[in-house]
């Protein structure tokens, strides 16, 4: 009799325990959902705040006016043109160098200490704070090489900054190409470069593009290194046009021109005491966020498409 009672009591204990554990499970799942939402919601809030504060400036005049001492008239013209020109220098330096470095490390590099040295450098550079790149640019580009506080300096700095991103994504994209493709190309007598360029590079094009877009989005939003090189913040002129009406139709004076970019203009406006300028800062912030999110979104979508469409 007594034995049976203790079994029943045990059973009750076990049932209580199971119930408790199930409750813990549900509690933790709720907590997890709250945490995840908290992170995501805060960021939604941030976006909402920018739109709510900046909406009076959402009009075309904001994009066609120069910065001004009067907040109501101030616009982003020199900043977005500057961003575009700086980004084009960044693109023209980081992309060829990054892709070539990725091809070398993945397809050519022998396994030795020298290759290890390059690889360690690439992964270390990815962890260097962006402001350190600004110091490098200040010491090397601005003073030693005498490029001044120009579009060229800023573009090269951001190019070095996103180089590790381009290299790493190029390597990842190349690694997804099966060896059989290379063997087939060698089998019909292709040289190494023919294999690498006509097959490996062309098939991994989408993956490489993903990395380039993510890198360019990063460069667009970077502020610290550009401030560090001492870029002016009040620029009410446009750099000379890269295209001219007379032969040779191209002109490179813009490279050495002073400039401002969108994040710098935003920083400049939000550090002023006059609240009217904060509206401009919010509108600029909203524009930067929209453009970077669109670029990153395109990159993620592209990667998703590629993963789905892999044919081998």
């Amino acid at each position, binding site marked *: 009799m007594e034995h049976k009672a203790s079994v029943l009591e045990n059973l009750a204990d076990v049932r209580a325990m199971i119930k408790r554990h199930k409750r813990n499970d549900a509690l933790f799942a709720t907590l997890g959902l709250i945490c995840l939402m908290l992170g995501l919601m805060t960021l939604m809030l941030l976006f909402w*705040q920018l739109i709510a504060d900046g909406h009076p400036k959402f009009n075309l005049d904001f994009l066609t006016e120069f910065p001004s001492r009067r907040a109501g008239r101030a616009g982003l013209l020199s900043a977005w043109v500057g961003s575009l020109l700086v980004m084009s220098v960044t693109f023209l330096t980081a992309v060829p160098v990054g892709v070539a470095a990725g091809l070398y490390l993945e397809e050519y590099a022998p396994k030795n200490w020298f290759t290890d040295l390059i690889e360690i450098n690439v992964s270390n550079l990815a962890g*260097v704070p962006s402001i350190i790149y600004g110091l490098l640019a200040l010491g090397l580009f601005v003073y030693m090489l005498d490029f001044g506080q120009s579009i060229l300096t800023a573009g090269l700095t951001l190019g070095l900054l996103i180089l590790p991103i381009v290299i790493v994504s190029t390597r990842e994209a190349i690694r997804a190409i099966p060896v059989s493709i290379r063997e087939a190309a060698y089998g019909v007598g292709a040289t190494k470069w023919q294999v690498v360029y006509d097959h490996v590079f062309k098939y991994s094009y989408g993956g490489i593009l993903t990395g380039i877009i993510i890198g360019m989005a990063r460069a667009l939003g970077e502020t*610290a290194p550009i401030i*560090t090189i001492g870029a002016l913040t009040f620029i009410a002129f446009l750099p000379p046009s890269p295209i001219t009406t007379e032969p040779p139709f191209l002109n490179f004076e813009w490279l050495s021109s002073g400039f401002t970019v969108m994040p710098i203009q935003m920083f400049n406006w939000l550090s002023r005491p006059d609240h009217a300028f904060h509206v401009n800062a919010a509108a600029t912030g909203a524009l930067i966020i929209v453009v970077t*999110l669109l670029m990153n979104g395109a990159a993620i979508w592209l990667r998703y498409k590629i993963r789905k469409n892999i044919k081998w």
Partner: protein
Amino acid sequence: MQLPAQLTISPRLAKNIRRNVKERIIELILMMAALVAVATTFAIVGVLLYESLSFFKTVSVIDFFTDTQWTPLFEDAHYGIMPLVSGTLTTSAIALAVAVPIGTISAIFLSEFASHKTREIVKPILELLVGVPTVVFGYFALFFVTPLLQSIYPSLPSFNMLGAGIVMGVMIIPYIASMSEDAMRAVPMSMREGSYAMGATRFQTAIKVVTPAAISGIVAAYILAVSRAVGETMVVAIAAGQQPNLTFNPLDSAATITAYIVQVAMGDLPHGSIGYQSIFAAGLVLMAMTLSFNIFGHWVRKKYRESY
């Protein structure tokens, strides 16, 4: 003199040689591109050391680490890096206090509790959020979080480390969540199945089996997040204030190393002056801090990686 017939190069062989030369040149060009990475590292270290050396000709290393004031631009100049380091460490500690619990719990939820579909939606969003420019977070800290905190503590100054730290924490949540989730996903399914077979719940499996197995990746994520927080510039430059202040009190206003560099760079300091050199010395300290965190993070991941 005419060459004997055997010594003239056949057209086929000539083509082959041309082809080989071209191949070698291409390989050389690609290698030069890869060397840009090495050159960048050397250039960074070189520039920082070169300018810092001139700085340390004027300032003794002992003063640099023991003086409790940092006022290189004042008449009565003091060069103690500690007030900047205290600001950097305090804001980073606040950021971690926010990001580590929220990021880790989010990662456990995503990896162990969420459905496949939720994960497929949330993971890309996390990646998107990692890409939001930091200057925008600075705006958020100054005009949203600080006023919110001021309604709780009315005596809080408008520039303070608490608001900047919290926003920096929010900024690195996606980073910690995404990296920790990757580490947990890498734990083999059979371990979870073993745990479920013993009657463990999801919560018990997550806490007692999956998390310990993935701990090296999770800790590495924390350490790399510290390195990011230490090197973060715009949020602290905008919201934490620019007054070097030897304090660990989050309610104070204080400058970090990065905020100091921004502050000096915005002014018009002549090239070669002590103020100009001081930002390179500060940069050297920052570089040493982030580099040691990065190396430590990679070491932890390698050393304590469980292999299955």
